[in-house]
């Protein structure tokens, strides 16, 4: 049973560029959440996708956007990269959006460096 998979594992970009990160959820899960983790801090919620729609969003600018596909996989897009976007980006999947259905399982993350 494959867990949550993310690609790529590492990425180096320059300021102003755009990046797309990808996530495949754990088998049987239909809900995907994205988090940003800066060095030395806890993960910060970006947004959650369920039934191909963004269900909730954290305090992130519109430069951060996402998509969920019919097979439940998801993409995170970041436009006009800033140095401060350098972080570990984590994807999590769950059976649903609340309570015990929202028990989240995390992928290994994509480490993004913006130069």
């Amino acid at each position, binding site marked *: 049973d494959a867990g949550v998979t993310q690609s790529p594992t590492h990425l180096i970009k320059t300021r102003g560029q755009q990046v797309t990160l990808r996530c495949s959820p754990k088998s049987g899960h239909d809900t995907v*959440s994205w*988090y940003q*983790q800066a060095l030395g*801090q*806890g*993960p*910060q*919620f970006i947004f*959650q996708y369920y039934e191909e729609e963004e*269900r*909730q969003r*954290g305090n992130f600018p519109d430069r951060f956007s996402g998509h969920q596909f019919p097979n439940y996989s998801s993409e995170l897009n970041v436009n006009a990269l800033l140095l401060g976007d350098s972080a*570990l980006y*984590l994807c*999590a999947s769950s059976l649903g*959006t*609340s*309570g*015990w259905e*929202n*028990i*989240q*399982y*995390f992928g*290994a*993350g994509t*480490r993004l460096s913006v130069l």
Partner: protein
Amino acid sequence: GIQVEQSPPDLILQEGANSTLRCNFSDSVNNLQWFHQNPWGQLINLFYIPSGTKQNGRLSATTVATERYSLLYISSSQTTDSGVYFCAVERTAGNKLTFGGGTRVLVKP
């Protein structure tokens, strides 16, 4: 939004020692998870425990929802227990997990 505070921020243990990590939260929750983040960044699920007590091997957790705190106990610590432990909560009728700042644990041989 809901506030989540973890203590202590750092913990150094000798192998074989026991320890208690604490998570305080500011509102009622319907999801509370404990995670261990290993040195490679992988977040590993330890417990789903919005209330009550659970045990898994050398680890156990207790959440007192009415008093808005959770405790994670590590017994007979091993060097592989090193890493960062995070508590994350979902406010009742919410969706997102809000993480605490973590407790960084170093177990020395």
